[in-house]
Every structure is written in C-alpha cells, then in structure tokens.
C-alpha cells in the first residue's frame, strides 16, 4: 500500500480547443479537449489538468462546457486553471464537474483569495500554480507572470511558504526556463520547493526523456505534469509508467474497462 506517483497530462484550452505553445508563444492546435481527456484516461493518466488560456468571457463559458462534458465521461480527477479570480469562479467550475482548481496571478495579486477558497471548499480543491524561473533573488528563484515574460518581484520560495500558510492543498511548480524545451525538469527548483513545503508537489516544464520523469521524482516531486511530449506522441503515458515501474517507482496500472 504505497501512494502511486501521478502522471498528469495538461491540456491548454482556448475557445474549446487544445493548444500548446513552446514557451507559450508559438501555439499549435492539437485537438478536442474532451476526446483527448478520454484518450488520456484510457492511456492511464492519473489526473487531468485543463489550463484555460482564453482571453474572453465567451471563451471561459466554452471552457465550462468542456469541463461539463469531460466530467460526464471521464471518471478521474480533473483540475482546471486559468482566469480564476474569485470564490464564485471556483464554485462555477466545481459545479461544472472540476475536482480542483489552480490559481496563479490572482493569488499573487491578493493572497487572501487562497484563504477564502480554502475556507469555503477546503484546501484539497486548491492548487497553487507557480510560474518560476532562475533569478538573482534570495533563493535564486523568482515568480513570473504573463507566461514567464515578466517578473512578479517575488521570491519563489517565499511565495510558496506564504501560500502554504494561507492554505493551498497542492503546488504546481512550472519552470519557465525549462517549459517547452524538453531538456528536463528544473531539478534544483523542485528540490528547493520540496524543502519548504509539506503539501503534494507537481513538477511541470521541461519533460523530454523518460529519465527526466524519474529525476523529478528523485528530487521530491509527488506528481509529474507534461503537455507537449504527450500531445505530440513523443512518449505515451503508459510508456512513462512502464519505465517508472521497471525502476521501482510506485505507479498505478490502468484498469481495463
């Protein structure tokens, strides 16, 4: 009885379609999110994440519909992030069928939002998404906004500690240096964040080779998120799990059915 490591494909969604950009600038359409969610479920994904990058209100309404249709067909946990600014936004997503929400910029602007969401729905629904990069801050890592293009002026480790005190249930750590490079997760960053947090840690950004996944686990990640390597078929989820299983990491075998 050991908790399995989680493999989580992330679907960037805008106006009801999946996209994934290299470093968030070069977007490529990669399909229908509901269908992709079902495929990833069959492939053995342990959770799914939708990141809504829609710029418009109409786009966000479309995302709610995507969440509804996904939750009706796919019975594994679904996290939705992007554009969440209030307790009401969280309520809408949970009622549509999301199990967790991830917040990022809105929490930086108003950390109290973390406590408001945790008080109403419990910490377990709340994932703090941290877009971080290497910088000359106290810890050597800083928080960024706008897809990694701007400094938030906040030290990444200090922010993680503060957010944990406010009540986040999980941390999604995105390396903006590694994102889209397929050159490996930022191992130093994972190690540093693991050392200051006691909630589950999802590593994101940079997954390329199979060894990259195990290296992130060795650094202290509880779960591994990836997008392009899955979307473009560089690796299939079951290949990642098979590799990890062979190297004695606990993985869940996908049930037949």
């Amino acid at each position, binding site marked *: *009885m*050991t*908790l*399995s*490591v*989680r493999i989580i494909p992330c679907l960037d969604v805008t106006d009801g379609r999946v996209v994934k950009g290299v470093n968030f600038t070069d977007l490529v359409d990669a399909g229908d999110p509901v269908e992709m969610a079902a495929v990833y*479920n069959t492939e053995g994904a*342990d959770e799914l994440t939708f990141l809504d990058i829609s710029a418009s209100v109409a786009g966000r309404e479309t995302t709610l519909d995507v969440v*509804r249709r996904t*939750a*009706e067909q796919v*019975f*594994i*946990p679904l996290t939705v992030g992007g554009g969440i600014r209030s307790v009401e936004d969280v*309520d809408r997503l*949970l*009622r*549509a*069928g*999301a*199990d967790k929400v991830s917040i990022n910029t809105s929490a930086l602007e108003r950390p109290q939002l973390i406590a408001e969401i945790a008080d*109403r*729905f*419990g*910490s*377990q*629904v709340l994932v703090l998404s941290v877009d971080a990069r290497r910088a000359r801050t106290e810890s050597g890592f800083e928080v960024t906004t706008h897809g990694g293009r701007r400094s938030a002026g906040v030290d990444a480790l200090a922010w993680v500690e503060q957010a944990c005190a406010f009540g986040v*249930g*999980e941390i999604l750590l995105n390396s903006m240096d590694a994102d889209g490079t397929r050159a490996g997760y930022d191992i130093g960053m994972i190690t540093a964040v693991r050392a200051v947090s*006691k*909630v*589950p840690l999802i590593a994101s950004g940079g997954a390329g080779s199979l060894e990259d996944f195990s290296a992130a686990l060795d650094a202290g990640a*509880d*779960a591994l998120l990836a997008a392009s390597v899955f979307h473009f078929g560089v690796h299939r989820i079951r290949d990642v799990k098979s590799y990890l299983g062979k190297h004695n990491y606990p993985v*869940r*075998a*996908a*049930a*037949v*059915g």
Partner: protein
Amino acid sequence: MIAILDYGSGNLRSAERAFAITGKEVVVTSDPTVALEAEGLVVPGVGAFAACMNGLNSVHGAAIVQERLAKERPTLGICVGMQIMFSHGTEHSDTAPHTGVGVWDGIVSQLGAPILPHMGWNTVEVGSDSVLFKGIEGESFYFVHSFAAKNAVGKMQAWSTHGERFLAAVEDGYMSATQFHPEKSGAAGLALIKNWVWSL
C-alpha cells in the same frame, strides 16, 4: 432510485454520472423525504469535518442516516461523508473534538505523514467477504484527505497506508463507506459503485 445528498457545494456532477452508469435513476437532492425514501442514499462530502456536519444538519442529514439504518435502507458515505459517520472528528478543533453522526464509535484524526493531503491513487488491503470490492481487490483508488479513522469498526474493513494505517472502507450491514472517491477512481471505482448498487 439512488439519491445523492446535496448539502453544500462541490462536484456532485461526477458522482451523479458515475452512479447513473449502473442504469439506476439518480437524483441529486437536498429534500429529506426523497433522501429518506430512496433505495440507496449516497452521502458525499468535501471540506472540513465540522463544516460538513453543519451542512448535513442543515438538510436533517444525520437524522435521515439514522432513520434509514433503523429502516434497513442502504447508505454509502464517501470521503468526508465517511468521516462524519464516526462519533468524533478532530479537524480544526483545538479543544474537544467535533461531534459526528455517530453510526460508528471512533475518532477521525489527522494522518501522521510528512506530506498532506494524502492525494492520489493508493491500493487497499481488503477484508474477507467484501461486497464492494468483489472482483477489484487488487486495484488502486483515488484518495484526497488529511484525516482518517484508524480503529476498526463494522463487519468488513479495508485498510490503506499513508504515513500510518487507516480505514479505507467499511461495510457494516446497511451502512457502507469509502475514504477514497469511487466516482474519481476510473474503471475500478465504477466497478465498486456497481457492486454497491447491485447489492441494494
């Protein structure tokens, strides 16, 4: 007909759809009469123990559960919906523990583990003659919780471990409960739901 008790916010859509896959009519309701009369009642639960009890009491849920037991009507608690069936819970309690429905005597307390919540897929050690786990004894299920019951109650116990051993599921006559989320546990979870529904 299966009733899913709606006594607060959270994702009930997945539970509704997962139970509907069995072919049974499923209603999400906060109507005490519907919940009392249903063939099977599902008590979900997210958030803190005391907040859940407050929500449950706002729809007379504790009385419904006890009356259903007295009338031999099956009830299934899920996650915090399992925890509040115990007599006491220590979550967010600095002094005396909060009071639960009290179907089972015992305290729901924090897991002694370095990383909390216990979040993700874990296997369970299933007791003999289980109805819920028939055919899926070796599968993994999805857990999200920081608190759990650690003493044996009921007729059949399933155990899991995160930092320490805790009760993953209980079967006790007309009362069953899972600490994990069967509605979020993929094919294995749907199989467990079918096992419960077909036992009604």
